[in-house]
């Protein structure tokens, strides 16, 4: 397996602001890689460096085996890009913008273009100034997806799309993966990343804080358990990997590390379980633990989180 994108120790500053602070990112050819982080964490800056629109201050950056700054034009024939904030020329129609961007990139598949326009329900005859945010995003998506680029770089491509269109988008990303194309998908919508991505990198304050497969990352998350028991549960708080225990008569609620789920449930059975519900581990929870507090970047699954940690 070869590497499509390799970034190591990337630093980018704007005046006094350190937008990227030693970021690492490794994307293998053929995978859909989720690039997650909250607003302002440096996702778009990283992508603009990858496209040669910004120059790295330091660090090693390689895109499809080339230098994204020096070899920009040659590399861009093999890359399609959807910006996070799609701005189009007000007096040019959506159809014209799609054709223009496709031709500048090196040609687009006409049949595919028509199919995408239909699936995304986009009127190509409207001038761009009358498009909504979602429709502008569709223009950029149709242009990118109807190209034969081997690498798709998508910066929050679905933030303006409705759920129906989001589903269409997901179909096309799965199709791209089936064709062996590589996708770098920046997002803060975790459900989307969970649905599509093979690998995920989470960044914060311009640094990579977690990276791995969905399964590996899920491993770091906790399951949330609520149980009604015959007798009030005691001694749960002293078990390893159990957090935020809340008991109320015969009902108990707690979070447990995935590694210690077995032990905790065994402990519960000794009090006679009458009902048991568990919320599966989600990326969201991992995400909130990384961003909802001021923990250092090298957080591991075993660290405690104060109950009711700020979420916004």
């Amino acid at each position, binding site marked *: 397996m070869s590497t499509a994108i390799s970034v190591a120790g990337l630093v980018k500053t704007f005046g006094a602001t350190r937008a990227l602070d030693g970021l690492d990112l490794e994307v293998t050819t053929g995978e859909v890689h989720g690039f997650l982080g909250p607003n302002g964490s440096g996702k778009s800056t990283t992508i603009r460096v990858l496209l040669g629109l910004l120059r790295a201050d330091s660090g090693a950056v390689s895109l499809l085996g080339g230098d994204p700054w020096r070899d920009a034009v040659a590399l861009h024939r093999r890359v399609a890009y959807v910006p996070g904030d799609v701005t189009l020329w007000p007096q040019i129609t959506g159809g*014209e913008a799609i054709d223009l961007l496709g031709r500048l990139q090196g040609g687009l598949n006409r049949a595919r273009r028509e199919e995408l326009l239909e699936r995304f329900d986009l009127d190509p005859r409207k001038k761009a100034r009358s498009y909504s945010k979602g429709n502008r995003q569709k223009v950029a998506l149709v242009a990118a997806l109807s190209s034969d680029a081997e690498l798709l770089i998508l910066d929050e491509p679905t933030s303006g799309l409705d759920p129906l269109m989001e589903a269409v988008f997901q179909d096309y990303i799965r199709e791209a993966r089936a064709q062996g194309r590589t996708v770098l998908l920046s997002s803060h919508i975790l459900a989307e990343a969970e649905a599509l991505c093979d690998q995920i990198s989470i960044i914060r304050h311009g640094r990579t804080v977690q990276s791995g497969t969905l399964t590996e990352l899920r491993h770091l998350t906790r399951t949330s358990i609520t149980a009604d028991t015959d007798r009030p549960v005691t001694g749960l708080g002293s078990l390893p990997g159990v957090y935020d225990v809340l008991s109320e008569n015969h009902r108990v609620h707690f979070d447990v590390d995935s590694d210690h789920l077995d032990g905790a449930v065994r402990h519960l059975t000794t009090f006679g379980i009458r009902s048991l519900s568990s919320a599966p581990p989600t990326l969201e929870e991992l995400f909130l633990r990384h961003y909802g507090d001021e923990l250092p970047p090298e957080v591991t699954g075993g660290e405690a989180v104060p109950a009711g940690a700020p979420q916004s």
Partner: protein
Amino acid sequence: MTTVAERAAAPPTTTPRGLALAGTGTLVRFALRRDRIRLPVWILTGAAMVAFQSLGSQTFYDTPQALAAYRASVGSNAATIALAGPPVGLDTVAGAVAFEISAFVILIAALMAMFTVGRHTRADEEAGRTELVRSARVGRHAPLLAAVIVAALACVALALATGLWATATGLPAAGSFMLGASIGAGGLVFTGITAVVAQVTSTARATYGIVGLLFGVFFVLRAVGDINGNLLVWTSPIGWAQAVHPFSDDRWAPLLLCAAGTVALVAVAVALLDHRDLGSGMLADRPGAPHASRGLSSPIGLALRLQRGSLIGWTVSLALLGLVYGGLAESVETLLADNEEATAFFPEITSAGLVEGYLATTFSINALLAAAYGVSSVLRARTEEAAGRADPVLATATGRATWLASHVVIALLGSFLLLAASGATTAAMRVAATGDADEFGRLFDAALTYAPAVWAVAAVAVALIGLAPRAAVAGAWAVVAYVVIVAMFARALDWPDWVDDASPIGWTPSAPIDGWTLAPAVGLGAAVLTLLAVGFVGFRQRDLTTG
């Protein structure tokens, strides 16, 4: 919860009229804050031009003889009348100041009013900011009226500043403030005109284009009216403003006409606003092409598509201006023949020499306009970049140099086209008047002499885009302002030679009086190439910057 509480507290008896204006005061204060640098710059520029002119004229025409000679030369020069205004009050130095400068400061006032109203109405609406503002407790008419109030305040401030500075340089106070009032009144009418046009178009760019065109039309109407001394001047708001005749008649009636015209225009704008949706103009968007034409498949194709409207508009305007200039050249001869005073003072002046001098002046004015176009066209690249529209193009297999070159090529060829178009129409009018077909080539070549100088000004904008993108727009227009001010004042105010030498226009021989020479063209060519190289290298080295 807050919303409910506020709603309950709001007086239930507010009339619909009051609601339509709700929030106007807040928006006025907000607009004044946004424009706290821009408006003082416009106002000080206008007032300073009057002050410079006052100081210059007082030095120049310090004796009654000098003033009489001036009066004689102006009375016989249609070019000066076409550019300046009605030749009245020339028996005092103060009157000469008003005659020479008022048209330029009215232009400043009109531009200030146009950009102020446009920025706070159509530009905000286009960017979606008005939608956000209107979603708050802000009435339908409030953003428009706030923009009009801010522009009107700026016009009043310009009028007062002009009056103060003119008085401070030694002109009679009453006339100074009448001069200020006539300038402010001109700006006021363009406040109203822009308010109407902003309702009709759907983009700020189109608003500025149409208002600019209207200014040109009104300027030509008053020029023709002033030369022939007829009622045509009353068809033009610029004519109204200048009919105040400061320092001589000090007439109030034209000021009232300007005020009434402004009120009527604003009323029309409000009525139009009531009949359209937020975000749209009066004309609905027609569906466009579902596919891009073959022309739209390269960076130059895109740049041409983006710039063609403005290029066509400028070319047609300059061709018409050249036509008017060429036609007026005949009046220069007629006026001289009729003017005994002038022939007495300038026995050595022949009508042919006067026509040559007149044509040289008009060609240099065309060169200044072509330079302004060149800069605006180059800056289109920066606008594209700042709006984030360069990103998707440069993320394709399009190199930075190719992308920048696509706009620069249009700027250089386009400004050449403007010189050629205005030169050709002037030359054709002269051929028609003199019957000498050889005149065409001679005058056409003379008009093109300015090409290297025009390119040099545009090339400064390219260099700025490469080196200092965020300062490029302000910096490039500052260079244009410098070139214009030097062309207007350097000789009259006897400024040191280096001031004129620093302007590319100053390097160019005054064709057709002086012939084309190699040295300045080579020097300017080298400057153009150097500035372009600096710009392109800088642009390839730096980050793209949006916003």
